[in-house]
């Protein structure tokens, strides 16, 4: 259960009051009529799935009803910052020097680029018992 700081209410509240709305900073093409189907498809359907720092859009649904952004580490679930709409994140993967790439997590907790084979899979990852 996350403990989320709402930048509008100016305090931390329980996750139950919030609702995630996917990746932040998705820009709708300015002139939809004149963009290609591919550009439109990218905007509609394609999202990042980073291991590490991720910027997300959340709404304080049962509070002030404001949308805002969260920078969250997807491996530790740590929330690194929250900031209002219209602002840019101060914590980014580039700045933190975090390796950010498309791929999947391997069973040993390592990282695998899509299509590659795990080099040394120890298969130590927990699955529910």
């Amino acid at each position, binding site marked *: *259960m996350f*403990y989320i700081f709402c930048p509008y209410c100016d305090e931390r509240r*329980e996750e139950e009051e919030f609702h995630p709305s996917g990746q932040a900073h998705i820009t709708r093409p300015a002139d939809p009529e004149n963009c290609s189907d591919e550009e439109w498809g990218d905007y509609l359907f394609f999202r990042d799935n980073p291991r590490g720092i991720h910027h997300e859009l959340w709404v304080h*649904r049962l509070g002030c009803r404001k*949308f805002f952004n969260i920078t969250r580490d997807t491996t530790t679930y740590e929330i690194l910052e929250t900031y209002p709409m219209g602002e840019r994140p101060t914590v980014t993967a580039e700045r933190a020097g975090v390796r950010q790439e498309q791929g999947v997590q391997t069973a040993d907790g390592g990282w695998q680029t899509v299509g590659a084979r795990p080099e040394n899979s120890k298969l130590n990852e927990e699955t529910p*018992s």
Partner: protein
Amino acid sequence: MSQHNRLNQGGRIDRSRSLSFTFNGQRYQGFAGDTLASALLANGVDIVNRSFKYSRPRGIIAAGADEPSAIMQLGASEAAQVPNVRATQQALYDGLVARSTNGWPSVQRDVMSWVGRLGGHLMPPGFYYKTFMAPASMWMTYEKWIRKGAGLGRSPAASDPDIYDHLNQHCDVLVIGAGPAGLGAALSAARAGARVILCDEQEEMGGSLLDSRESLDDAPAADWVAKAVAELDAMESVTLLPRTTANGYHDHNFVTLHERRTEHLADTAAGAGREGEVRSRLHRVRAEQVVLASGAHERPLVYANNDVPGNMVAGAVSTYIRRYGVVPGQKLVLTTNNDHAYRAALDWQEAGRDVVAVVDSRANPDGELVQQARDSGIRVITGSAVMEGKGNQRVSGARVVAIDTPRFVVTGSIEELDCDTIASSGGYSPVVHLASHTGKRPQWRDDLLGFVPGEVKGMHYAGGVQGIYALDESLADGARAGAEAARAGGFEAAGAMTLPAAASRRESATEALYQVPHEKTSLRAPKQFVDFQNDVTAAAIELATREGFESIEHVKRYTALGFGTDQGKLGNINGMAIAARCLHRSIPEVGTTVFRPNYTPVTFGAIVGRHCRELFDPERYTALHQWHVENGAEFEDVGQWKRPWYFPQKRRADGQERLETMHEAVARECLAVRQGVGILDASTLGKIDIQGPDAREFLGRVYTNKWAKLAPGRVRYGVMCKDDGMVMDDGTTSCLGDNHFLMTTTTGGAASVLEWLELWHQTEWPELQVYFNSVTDHWATITVTGPEARKLFSEVTDIDLDREQFKFMDWREGRVAGVPARVFRISFTGELAFEINVQANYALHVWKTLFAHGEKYDLTPYGTETMHVLRAEKGLIIAGQDTDGSVTPEDLGMHWAVGYDKPFAWIGKRALNRPDTAREDRKQLVGLKPKDPKVVLEEGAQIVLDPDQAIPMTMMGHVTSSYYSPVLESGFALAVLKGGRKRMGETVYLPMSNGTTHEAEVVSTIFVDPKGERQNV
């Protein structure tokens, strides 16, 4: 039976308060301060259970949360049954009734043991998979049989009489565990001014200090505990929670604590004389900082027959003697690889019983405790270990042999010692469970021979959990961790804390020994148990590695090591060490499994709290709910709303009075609306008030159709799409003024549509000046509809209802039944209709006034079922029923509601220009008329064109709504069908699961009044 193992003095029990209890039907006596386990041991009860897989007799092994075998079914009455309670964690109370969860017909004579003995060969590791999986159809039978035999406890068949609470708590520092480190941490954090919660799972706070041989400030350690607890108790900023287990550690320092408030007194709160009080609480703690002081569990050694009753963990022997005044036997052999375990031998001897020998695997142990044992005349056999226990229902001897630990072989001849108790110690495993609940892997420390917790943000470790075992060091470490946690929470201690003086003892190092080598191989030696609860042996782990299981996670699943309520408390490290030896790897290379919440079982009552029965989920009632109840409505759940479904009336037939069936009631209600006048409570409809100079522009962007010219006083139907062009919701929006609109949504869509509007306003078009507010609950909505609606309604309103003045799709403000109202001429039935909105608290008055005037028109209340039939007869869709997120407005035949020439690229427009949405073979909304009018097609039924095609058939679409129409005297349906609009008049087929096939004709979606004249009168 007498308490023949009870000492005459010592321990923290009250010998003046005798308590009587029942175990497996036999009556026993114990004392106040006992646990169920200590009382059973005092009475000399050796066998408390039968093992899970082999049905071997099992006794009490440990003294706390690590006990794997003494798992009880508690409760004197059916309603009070609690399964899977550890006897070691259950305080004794007068009248306690306990049974073994396993063993049938009794633990003494277990018919299953034959199976177990044979099962030595029948049940190798993976036995579930190998033996019982085929044939799959037999699995249910097998599982039932296994569960009956294995006896994993049972849930009560009667309703729980008790109540449970959830409490949300906040604190600066949560300290988990009140042993020396935890008390030190709580004291230092609290003295620094932090708000502290200190919880401990035991009956008393103090942890290891309660049975310690050590002194603090030259007084018994327990005296210091009393002082420390008293100081904390007196501080307002401190909350003490005894009998409270921290069961789960979740993200952002969210910790769930299970506090048992009456379980130590009786099996129900009422039985404890606390009628109406809360039995247990779940504290949901949001802690700024957490100090984990959960200590360590002692590992038993793995040797042959180490599960026969009389085998115990060394520390537990000390605990029973010193804390409960119980010596669980006469003649002790202790086998150990460390100094600390020598306490058991010293305590045993001081209790006046015979210590046969201490068998130490180390060649030259010379620590202080070892010396003390030698000085007390105890025989210490070095370089050796107990290789095998003797006995069946109770230990009768120990076979001791010299061993070469690194080479894992026995080196000398075997000596047989006569004894009834074997205490063993293989070192200590920090209780890292909570620290790994969020996925952080523990780290192996070679110097400690154990895993310590990995770094978790906001969590501090104190004492045994990070391998600091010596009392003086543990106290100091606690004080340090408490001060650090307080500092991290913004509280600075005034100065260093003065700690009570404790002796520092010289210890010789622990030797890495997990499994004792046997003269025979692991596979041929008598069983050497690793996980007692799941009956996992060393041989099973060895076999698993031989069969190619290299990952510890796979070994775990194959053998069941660390499963269940045990969660590997005693066995995990030994199991990993054995796997590592077999795989010729080190323990850190093999790694550890991580632990899941909960640490120990939590009752469903505590998890559920008050969220049961009528409080399980919020129920929403309209302002007219009570009237519906009084008038016999059957209700339907729509989201959280309770809506009248239909109003069954009494009916006389064959001289008998009975209630209408749903079919009869709905037919009557439908005909009333089509022929007279009906009334519906439509208050649950979502209503959003939209204001601002850009409100009109905003509507034009979120709806597919045009809004630029909608004048005040007019209403328009609108369809909303997502940006993928698929229909999301629909409803009417009325222009209340140039800058003011009232939007309606589906009942279920109210909250999500509001969030949708906010999303687009706040993230895409913040420059638009527009504001949204939900007014669903503020207005009650009453629909009066049918050919007689105008006549009736004119009697109660001052609004001019002339058909030229107040047209279809107009709205007017005025008075209804004397109160202010907005009236909308919109229709969801296809009949003349007035939708009356009044302030919710006037609703009942208006409703009753309508009925007073409506009697002469036979005004008929109708519910959601009739509403559905009437709207479907008119081909009016319900978003979410006739659409599923893959349906465009065009698919619904609503091209008239799509403004392709609107200037702004409204939501969904771009996607509707894709080639895919222009395909002619898309599934399109059509009507279906079954060839047999008695047939009501199943909603969801698949449509095929060729009923004789072999399976898999080509599916062309499916039924979305289907009812019986009393007007048509036939079943009818709406469906989505590939290229449906071009198939009008064709026959399609609907094969059913029972082998029959229905025939239906593809028809228009509008079944009644195709020209729409009836609503326009």
